[in-house]
């Protein structure tokens, strides 16, 4: 088997057994980036020297017979709103274009402590505000399945990097669907962990009560591996739960028979017919595996988008006040302090970000706060309660991960309301703080392209083990065809270096 097509589990085993070095694995992926990223634009920065040093260190430890950790030599691409010491952290914004992080985020420290190699920083919607990666100040990322389409967002660069074979694993952030929707558009898996399971220390804050950090991988096992490395309490983040990481990869096998699965009608609203057809096929597969699937109703989920945009914008208007040209980032020339603030922010922030800051400032104004922000915060309670009630009857709740497949670049950027409303399916999960997996469930033929679509499996707070187990078992049933399509897409995208291993 060749390296470009090898499961992460096998790459890890080959590195540990010395059949291939961490440096060889890294060079393979750096080569893939050189070959493919000119088409895809998934990466804002490739950390070549740093990654080579880290890979050499892993190889040296292995030669000495020491264990470099559970992720020894595995390259990981990281969304550019997560701090990596010595690398830029633009958050997709030109206001942070030349800033270099003086520290590692907790998630990065944990990856490095386990021998992972941070290969690069991935493109994203500016400050994670978007669903297409079109609002990045560093160019649009293209969907590797069809380069005229978006990869989704805001973690579009991370998802496209994994799908196109430029990195085996990636980290993203999810505030309203920013891991799950791009995972769906790219035919890979992505997990939005329960709020508080993964530390947010060192992650650029967008909406602090909704932001989460999570993994991308080609398979559910890959996501479980990355999650068990980054999860667990961190004293540097007061919102982090007092829980330790679970060995998620060891809890993937087991029976799913008898699991009760709810399908809320509200999350099927506006779903395109071909995606709905794939979803119903998937429900049939789940039933054949012994899961008990039942339709249900969660009426307040229909209000999730409106409540989200009030809350997220309000929090963003406060969080992004720090980008003022004083301590870091871009500073505009100005004679007075006020001019410096307003010009630095006006010149440095993109239009979508400015719009959300203005919206947040408006909904927090004394005359407007009750009508918008407080009303939204109360609706959030209703959403949370409905999930709690639903989980009394169901182990899992499922829906498509997005109402449609990847759309054409430019199609929705001038119609923000349509773009916002498409997040209806993913947003309630962040509002309630529960966990959810996005995994490929099939393909849709669209305008001459074969495009993936994803399934969302929602679980109770901190019940990632059940979500991942259901996803893993389902993958065994429906995953073979998806993996074959992925191989074909990668072959079409560009040449891959042959790297045969000796059996």
């Amino acid at each position: 088997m060749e390296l470009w097509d090898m499961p992460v589990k096998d790459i890890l085993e080959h590195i540990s057994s010395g059949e291939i070095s961490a440096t060889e694995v890294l060079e393979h992926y750096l080569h893939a980036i050189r070959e493919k990223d000119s088409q895809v634009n998934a990466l804002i920065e490739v950390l070549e020297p740093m990654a080579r040093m880290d890979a050499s260190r892993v190889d040296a430890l292995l030669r000495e017979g020491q264990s470099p950790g559970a992720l020894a030599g595995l390259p990981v691409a990281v969304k550019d709103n997560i701090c990596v010491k010595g690398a830029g952290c633009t958050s997709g914004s030109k206001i942070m274009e030349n800033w270099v992080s003086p520290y590692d985020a907790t998630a990065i420290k944990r990856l490095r402590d386990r021998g992972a190699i941070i290969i690069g920083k991935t493109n994203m919607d500016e400050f994670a505000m978007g669903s297409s990666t079109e609002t990045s100040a560093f160019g649009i990322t293209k969907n590797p399945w069809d380069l005229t389409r978006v990869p989704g967002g805001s973690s579009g660069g991370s998802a496209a990097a994994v799908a196109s074979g430029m990195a085996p694993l990636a980290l993203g952030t999810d505030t309203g669907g920013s891991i799950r929707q791009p995972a769906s558009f790219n035919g890979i898996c992505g997990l939005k962990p329960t709020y508080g399971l993964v530390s947010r220390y060192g992650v650029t804050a967008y909406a602090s009560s909704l932001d989460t950090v999570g993994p991308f991988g080609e398979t559910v096992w890959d996501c479980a591996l990355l999650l068990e490395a980054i999860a667990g309490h961190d004293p540097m983040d007061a919102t982090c739960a007092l829980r330790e990481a679970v060995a998620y990869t060891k809890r993937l096998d087991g029976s799913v028979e008898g699991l009760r699965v709810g399908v809320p009608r509200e999350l099927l609203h506006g779903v395109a017919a071909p995606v709905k057809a794939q979803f119903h096929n998937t429900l049939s597969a789940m039933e054949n595996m012994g899961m008990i699937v039942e339709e249900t109703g969660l009426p307040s989920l229909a209000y999730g988008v409106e409540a989200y945009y009030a809350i997220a914008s309000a929090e963003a208007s406060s969080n992004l006040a720090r980008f003022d040209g004083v301590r870091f980032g871009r500073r505009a020339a100005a004679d007075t302090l006020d001019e410096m603030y307003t010009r630095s922010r006006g010149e440095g922030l993109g239009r979508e970000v400015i719009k959300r800051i203005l919206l947040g400032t408006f909904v927090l104004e004394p005359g407007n706060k009750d009508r918008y922000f407080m009303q939204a915060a109360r609706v959030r309670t209703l959403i949370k309660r409905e999930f709690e009630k639903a989980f009394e009857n169901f182990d899992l709740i499922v829906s498509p991960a997005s109402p449609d497949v990847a759309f054409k670049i430019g199609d929705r950027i001038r119609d923000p309301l349509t773009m916002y409303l498409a997040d209806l399916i993913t947003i309630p999960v962040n509002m309630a703080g529960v966990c959810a997996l996005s995994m490929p469930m099939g393909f849709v033929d669209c305008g001459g392209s074969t495009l993936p679509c994803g399934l969302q499996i929602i679980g109770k707070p901190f019940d990632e083990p059940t979500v991942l187990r259901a996803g893993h078992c389902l993958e065994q049933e429906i995953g073979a065809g998806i993996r074959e399509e992925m191989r074909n897409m990668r072959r079409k995208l560009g040449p891959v270096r042959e790297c045969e291993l000796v059996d």
Partner: protein
Amino acid sequence: MRIDVRRIAQIARIDLDPQDEEAMARELELILARMDKLLELDVEGVPPTFALGEGTLEPAEDLPHESLCRELVMECAPSVHDGYFKVPRESQGV
């Protein structure tokens, strides 16, 4: 709902492109009109949710610990003088 976008931009300390003011106001008004849908729901007596999860939300213990390297932090600043962040000296207020 009409929105005075110039005034809001001033509060948010953002220099807004005057040519974009009208389009921006229109887009915000559309979103706010959509948000009015929230008023359909009866939330009388429902407490608001501002934060989630099991986080301690406790202040950290007041103990010394390693903090960020001062030199590295200052290196990232747009302008420094004698170990301080340097800014223009006057403020006109709003």
